[in-house]
């Protein structure tokens, strides 16, 4: 067996004239190939599973984590800025409401003061009007009373001048009153 293996291997060493089996089917090389494949592939497996794959897996995981963390951070910042925006809007609305309240309050105070002044002016005016009307009525009554006097005097004068006789004042007054009463 051993000599057989050796002779086949020797033929391959021959160089120019390649006798023997088609190399891939030459079973004399199988033992060596199997052994060295087991050694090299075994070593490769150990290197991959212990060194290379944890390394690449670690890199990928670190990147994945970093991206996730950054996204989370971005979301947090976004929420923060949204909250700040809402708070700003709220305080703005409050300020606006307060300003409106102040404005309406001022307006009502001013209106009240104005109304009071107007009322005062109106009432003083109406007092004055009433006083003036009373005065006018007094003057009118006085004038009317004087009209009677004037009419009596005029009638007396007319009677004395036309008839040439004096008439009693009371008669004239009665006559005038009778005429004006008609």
């Amino acid at each position, binding site marked *: 067996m051993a000599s057989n293996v050796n002779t086949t291997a020797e033929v391959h060493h021959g160089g120019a004239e390649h006798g023997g089996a088609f190399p891939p089917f030459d079973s004399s090389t199988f033992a060596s190939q199997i052994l060295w494949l087991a050694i090299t592939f075994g070593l490769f497996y150990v290197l991959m599973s212990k060194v290379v794959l944890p390394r690449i897996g670690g890199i*990928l995981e670190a990147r994945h984590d970093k991206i996730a963390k950054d996204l989370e951070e971005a979301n947090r910042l976004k929420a923060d800025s949204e909250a700040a925006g809402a708070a700003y809007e709220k305080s703005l609305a409050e300020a606006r409401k307060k300003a409106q309240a102040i404005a309406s309050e001022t307006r009502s105070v001013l209106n009240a003061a104005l109304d009071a002044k107007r009322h005062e002016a109106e009432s003083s005016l109406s007092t004055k009007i009433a006083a003036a009307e009373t005065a006018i009525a007094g003057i009118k009554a006085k004038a009317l009373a004087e009209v009677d006097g004037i009419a009596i005097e005029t009638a007396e004068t007319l009677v004395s001048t036309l008839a040439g006789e004096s008439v009693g004042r009371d008669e004239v007054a009665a006559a005038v009153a009778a005429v004006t009463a008609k």
Partner: protein
Amino acid sequence: MAADKVDPIHQFHITKILPINVGHYDVSFTNSSLFMAMTVIAATAFLILATSGRSMVPNRWQLVAEMSYSFVANTLRDAAGKAGMKFFPMVFSLFMFVLVANLLGMIPYFFTITSHIIVTFCLAMLVISTVVIYGIWKHGFHFFGLFVPSGVPAALVPLVTMIEVISFLSRPISLSVRLFANMLAGHITLKVFAGFVVTLSAAGVAGMAGAVLPLAMAVALTALEFLVAFLQAYVFTVLTCMYLNDAIHPGH
């Protein structure tokens, strides 16, 4: 020596670098062993150096390392669900090992370890034995329910079960032969067309003009082989994930 250059099989020969014999077995350190070691060193060094920055915003090398990680992780998660992630180191190791081995094989004068069926078969057996051992450990006898699909008429059960068993047994073969044959055929084709270029251009001016065609072909095939190198690593990984899914969820 010229004949040696155009021999398309020459590239697959295994030569001893350090002869080692253990008992009856010849376990010499060969060019194949060397390239297995180079695959491990290149893949590990790339993944470690690319991620040495551990930067939050990756540079392009780190991005490639991260993309290969997420690519395999997504493939596994899609095929086998969250429970399949415990196999992630194995699936990732398989993907990177096959991919880097295939790509290293694209460098001229480099040996392609995946062009040897014993290598791909061992990798396939690793997957299948993982499936069987984990499946039986996790589900016990229920694991064999994998071979009896539900909802099949009773009369058809023996036939369907037989087909399922055969398909299960052919998995390691199809998984290994697919990768092996693709790499082998691709490298032979490349070598043949490259050999045409050499022989034709040695035959004078007319030959040189004629050599343009196989040269263009060799260039196109090189591009195709890079695609195949990636694609076969991917296919190997996807099928691994699907088989692992059977071990995790044996019910059809």
